[in-house]
């Protein structure tokens, strides 16, 4: 199995290859340049690992949640790559990939992942370090569905948990306990994907927008 993992739900545009004795990844930080960077990163990752596109057996994309335009770039890149190579494509919640890095830092107990949703909101979910492990590292278990909210609207006992993601950097007074994991790493997404697929999970690709499109229907406008 050789997994190509892609995530564009945070300001990291991140690509990784994992399996077959290979662990290679490439990441660029650019909150606006998703469509420019992803494909060159995929090519670079393959070249670094001396592998051909035809060697990839599975694609894993981050389902988000994340800012819409960037999120879609990663998902469409992954689904099209898989279609072109006639291999399966899977989707994993991007917050779960961040939680993998966070769990390694907290070691035990509950923590939070809160990423930048723009418009003064965060995408977030609550986690605990669960039973079992991921390739020897602590394994996170998600306790809540991913959601989008204003940070101040989260209960204080939730906000005060150790928090991964850009949330603490953006709202330091609201998330006082920052963890070092800021953006999704495709290497962690690949690891999670590999373990979940090994356990026989089915992982549908579905963009987690969590917000409806920002437009009023003509009927709504007439009522407003």
């Amino acid at each position: 199995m050789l997994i190509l993992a892609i995530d564009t739900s945070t300001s990291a545009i991140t690509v990784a290859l994992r399996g077959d004795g290979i662990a290679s990844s490439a990441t660029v930080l650019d909150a606006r340049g998703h469509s420019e960077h992803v494909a060159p990163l995929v090519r670079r990752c393959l070249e670094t690992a001396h592998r051909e596109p035809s060697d990839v057996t599975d694609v894993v994309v981050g389902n988000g949640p994340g800012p819409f335009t960037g999120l879609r770039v990663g998902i469409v890149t992954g689904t099209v790559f898989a279609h072109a190579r006639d291999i399966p494509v899977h989707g994993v919640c991007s917050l779960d990939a961040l939680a993998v890095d966070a769990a390694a830092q907290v070691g035990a107990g509950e923590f939070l992942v809160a990423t930048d949703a723009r418009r003064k909101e965060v995408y977030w979910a609550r986690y605990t370090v669960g039973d079992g492990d991921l390739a020897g590292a602590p394994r996170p278990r998600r306790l809540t569905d991913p959601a989008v909210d204003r940070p101040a609207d989260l209960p204080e006992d939730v906000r005060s948990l150790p928090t991964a993601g850009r949330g603490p950097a953006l709202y330091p007074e609201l998330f006082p306990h920052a963890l070092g994991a800021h953006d999704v790493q495709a290497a962690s997404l690949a690891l999670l994907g590999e373990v979940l697929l090994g356990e026989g999970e089915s992982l549908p690709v579905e963009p987690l927008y969590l917000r409806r499109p920002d437009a009023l229907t003509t009927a709504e406008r007439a009522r407003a």
Partner: protein
Amino acid sequence: MSADQPLVLGLETSCDETGVGIVRGEELLVDAIASSVDEHARFGGVVPEVASRAHLEAMIPTIERATRQAGVRLDDLDAIAVTSGPGLAGTLMVGVAAAKSLAVALGKPLYGVNHLASHVAVDIVEHGPLPEPTLAMLVSGGHSSLLLVPDVTHDVRSLGSTIDDAAGEAFDKVARVLGLPFPGGPHIDRVAREGDRVAIDFPRGLTAGRDMDRHRFDFSFSGLKTAVSRWVQAREASGEPVPVADVAASFQEAVTDVLTRKAVLACREHGVEHLQIGGGVAANSRLRAMAQERCDAAGITLRVPRPGLCTDNGAMVAALGAQMVLKGRAPSDLSLPADSSMPVTLVQS
């Protein structure tokens, strides 16, 4: 690859149509389209985020349908082409990312091409090689341009464009005034058939006096739209019924009169013997008829692709991509951006 018959897949996502076309040389094999226009109708116009979500959902099924109907495998392709601009930033990005991924996964060259030049190039798969130079008039909900095209793969010059609304936008707005559904073009065309084209003398923007010096080949449709809505309001205020068919026919006559008059004038002044009309408004029956009459009178050959190829589609992108390959143009870089305001003079990015 066969050097004179490159097999090229074109992807178009600049607005609300997910288009995947496949061309072999100058022959169209398939033009697969998924449109989100019905989802936009309840918003009264295209909502970029709604369109972008629809592109993502439609991408694989549309690619799949195109290759199946054309009877080709993706591995057989010689090149991938994609609309890199102009258009809606968010929708363009879906297509550009998809095309790049195809290029990487298949190891094929990628061409990021201009949407407007593609509207011109599509006629090659309909009527054969494009005469050089050609004068092209592109009229749709997003653009109204007169272009001088010495070589569609690298030399496209702008003679003029709209200074306010696009022609198709005027159709949408007037349709709304008349209580007709979105998109307005086909409904106005249909209703106008029953109406009197000379019932109301609506204004012809930028066609007289100093305007013909400063804006010789430019268009303006917002004054016309305002004139129509004032006329309708006055009718309603006086308690008389609005003659919808006459208003539609007279409005349509004003638009097509200005468009064809300036297009023919541009051909004459630039010594061009071939006029091509493209874009969604080129499907308008009155525009096609009037353009034919005036071109015949002026000794100009008119080329208009069938209506399905005038609106946005993937075939036009594939057609231009194939020309790029045939003329030996270098592929685009894999880091090419989606450029929502790509100038018409930039054929390839």
